[in-house]
C-alpha cells in the first residue's frame, strides 16, 4: 500500500520526490544516531546480563522514537525555509507546493524508510528456504511483521501531517500527542509475540490518527460521502 501511495501521489511531481528522499534521509540519520547511542550503551555494559540487555534495548527504542520526532521537527524547519525560497523564486508569488503536501510527503518519506528498514531483510530471508517459527516462536512472524510495518508506515504519514500542522499553528499539544502516540505504538510492540497487544492498539491508533489528519487537511464527513458516492 505504501508503494501504491508513492506511485499515485508522489511520483508525478519531481519536487515531491526530492522531499520524499530527503525525508527518508532524515529518518536514516535519526536512526543512525539512535543506534549509535544504543551501541555505545551496549558496549559499555555487560553483554551477559540478560535483563540489562533487554532494558537497554527498550531504552534504545524509546530514545530512537524521541530522536525520530526531533528529526521530524528539524525537517519541518528545513522545509519551511525551502518554501520561502520557492515562493521567492516562483513567478506568481505562490509556492508550487503547499506545506500540507510537504507534510504528507515528508510523512511518507519517513514511513517508507522505516518500513523498508524493518522489512527488507525479512523479505530477503523469506525468499529462501526455511520454516517459520521452528524454534517455538510464533508462526505468524512474517504476517504480523508485514501488518505491523504497514501500520507503521501509515502512522508515520499521518504523524507527519499532524506534526506539521501542529508546528504551523503552534499547537503544542498536537505535537505532544504525536510523540506520545509514537511512543505508545513502539511500546506496544514490546508485547510481541503476544500480537493482540501490539497490532490491535496500533491499528486503533492508526484509525484515530487517520481521522484526525483527514479533518485537519480540510476534509469532512461530507467530502467523504461525496467521494464515496462518486458525485
Amino acid at each position, binding site marked *: 500500500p505504501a508503494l501504491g501511495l508513492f506511485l499515485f501521489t508522489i511520483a508525478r*511531481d*519531481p*519536487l515531491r*520526490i*526530492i522531499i520524499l*528522499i*530527503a525525508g*527518508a*534521509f532524515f529518518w*536514516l540519520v535519526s*536512526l*543512525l544516531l*539512535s*543506534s*549509535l547511542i*544504543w*551501541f555505545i550503551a*551496549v558496549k559499555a555494559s555487560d553483554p551477559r546480563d540478560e535483563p540489562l540487555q533487554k532494558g537497554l*534495548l527498550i531504552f*534504545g*527504542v524509546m530514545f*530512537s*522514537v524521541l530522536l*525520530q520526532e526531533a528529526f521530524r521537527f528539524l525537517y519541518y524547519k528545513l522545509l519551511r525555509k525551502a518554501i520561502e525560497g520557492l515562493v521567492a*523564486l*516562483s*513567478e506568481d508569488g505562490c509556492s*508550487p507546493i503547499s506545506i500540507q503536501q510537504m507534510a504528507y510527503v515528508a510523512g511518507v518519506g519517513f514511513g517508507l*524508510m*522505516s518500513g*523498508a*528498514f*524493518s522489512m*527488507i*531483510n*525479512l523479505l*530477503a530471508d523469506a525468499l529462501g528456504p526455511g520454516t517459520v517459527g521452528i524454534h517455538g516462536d510464533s508462526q505468524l*512472524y512474517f504476517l*504480523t*511483521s508485514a501488518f*505491523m*510495518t504497514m501500520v*507503521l508506515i501509515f502512522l508515520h504519514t499521518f504523524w507527519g501531517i499532524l506534526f506539521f500542522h501542529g508546528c504551523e499553528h503552534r499547537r503544542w499539544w498536537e505535537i505532544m500527542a504525536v510523540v506520545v502516540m509514537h511512543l505508545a*505504538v*513502539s511500546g506496544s*510492540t*514490546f508485547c*510481541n*509475540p503476544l500480537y493482540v497487544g501490539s497490532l490491535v492498539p496500533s491499528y486503533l491508533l492508526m484509525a484515530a490518527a487517520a481521522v484526525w489528519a483527514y479533518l485537519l487537511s480540510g476534509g469532512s464527513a461530507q467530502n467523504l460521502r461525496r467521494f464515496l458516492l462518486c458525485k
Partner: protein
Amino acid sequence: MITFMNNSDSEEEPCNERTSLMSAESPPVPSYQDGLQASEAGELQAHRKRRTGSSRSPNNIADGDVPDSRVPVRESALENEEEELTLKYGAKHVIMLFVPVTLCMIVVVATIKSVRFYTEKNGQLIYTPFSEDTPSVGQRLLNSVLNTIIMISVIVVMTVFLVLLYKYRCYKFIHGWLILSSLMLLFLFTYIYLGEVLKTYNVAMDYPTLFLIIWNFGAVGMICIHWKGPLQLQQAYLIMISALMALVFIKYLPEWSAWVILGAISIYDLMAVLCPKGPLRMLVETAQERNEPIFPALIYSSAMIWTVGMAKPDTAARGPSQQMQDEAEDGRENHRSPSHAESQMSETRSPVPTRPITSFEELEEEERGVKLGLGDFIFYSVLVGKAAATASGDWNTTLACFVAILIGLCLTLLLLAVFKKALPALPISITFGLIFYFSTDNIVRPFMDTLASHQLYI
C-alpha cells in the same frame, strides 16, 4: 562532473574520468585468464569516460545576438527569467538525473545479488598489484593505500594525457581511442556478463545465437553512442555501460582498496575540477574556448537537443529532434545550464531580425538538461554494489547508501544551480555514501537485528 554538454555522446571511453575524466577504466584485462593483452587493453580501459562537458550557457551566444539598443534591458530581464526558470525547473532536472542513477544502481545491485561471479575474487587488476591477503591489519592497510596511490596516479596520467591531446588538437587520436575502448566495453564485457548471467540461471544458449545477440547489441550501441540515435536508447546504453564498468570494478578491486580508492577519487575529483590548474578544468575551459562539444560517450545527458534551423527559431524550436548535435554547446563539467531559458529566450528574440550566428550554423535551442559524467555513474554504482556485495547487513546498508548518494546528488545539483559552473559530482555523494555505509554496517545493523529478533518496532 555534471556539465552541460551538447556533444554527441561518444562512448565513454573506458578511460578515466570518474567524474569527468575517467582514466582508469578497468584494466581487468591483464588479470583475465584468457590472456588478453594487458597493457593495451589496460590503456584503453584506463581511458574512462571523461566527464567533459563544459556547459556554457548558450546565453553567451544568445546575448551576443541581441541588438544593442535593447541589450541592457533584455539581458537583465532575460537573466532574471533564466535564473528563475533554472531554479524552478531544478527539481525536474534532479529527477532526470535521479532516474538513470537509480537504474544503474539497481542493475548493479541486482547482478551482484544474483550472479556469483562478480563477488568471487579471481585475481586483481594490474593497477592494484598489492594483494590484500596479508596477515596483519597494518600490512593490509598499507597495501590498500599503495594500491590507491597507483590507481590514482594512473588516472591522473591518463587525464593529463587526454587533456594534452585535446589541447593539441589530436582529435583523431582521441576519437580512435574512444571508439576502441567503447568497442571493447560493448563487446567483451557484454559477452562476459551475458555468459555469467546465463550460467547463473542455467539457461542454455548456443554460440550462434549468442554471437547474433552480442553483435546486434554492440553494433547498435556503437551507433547510438558515437553517432546519432534516439535519446532514450542512448541513455539506456550509457547506463548499461556504466553498470558493466562498475561490475568489473567491484569484482576486481580488493576490499579495502576499493573504499580507499573511492575516497581518494572524490578528493581528486574535487581538486581536478576546482583548482585552476586541474586537468579537468583545463579541459573544460579549452573546450569552451573553442566552442566545441566535449567528447560524446563520456557524458550522460538528460536533455533533448533540438536542432533549430536558422530561419525560424520559433516554429523549429517546437519540434524536438532528438539528435545529438555535435555542436557548440560545450557543456563541460558539472554545469547545469538553464534549460528552458533557451527556448524562452529564443521566442522572445524571434522578432529580432538579424541573428548573426556565425560559427555554429544551427543554434540549438536546446532544452538543456544536466549532464553528468559517466564516471560518476560508475563510482556511485561501485559504492552501492560494494555495499550490496560485502555488507553483512545486506539490504539495509545498500538502501542507506542509495539514499545517501541520492541526497548527495541533490545537494550537488543545488550547488550547481547556485554556482553555475562545472562542479565535481563525486565528493559530496561519495562522502555521504561512505559515511552511511560504514556507520550502517557497523552500528545500525546490530541494533536493527536485535530489534527484528524481538520484533520491536521503532
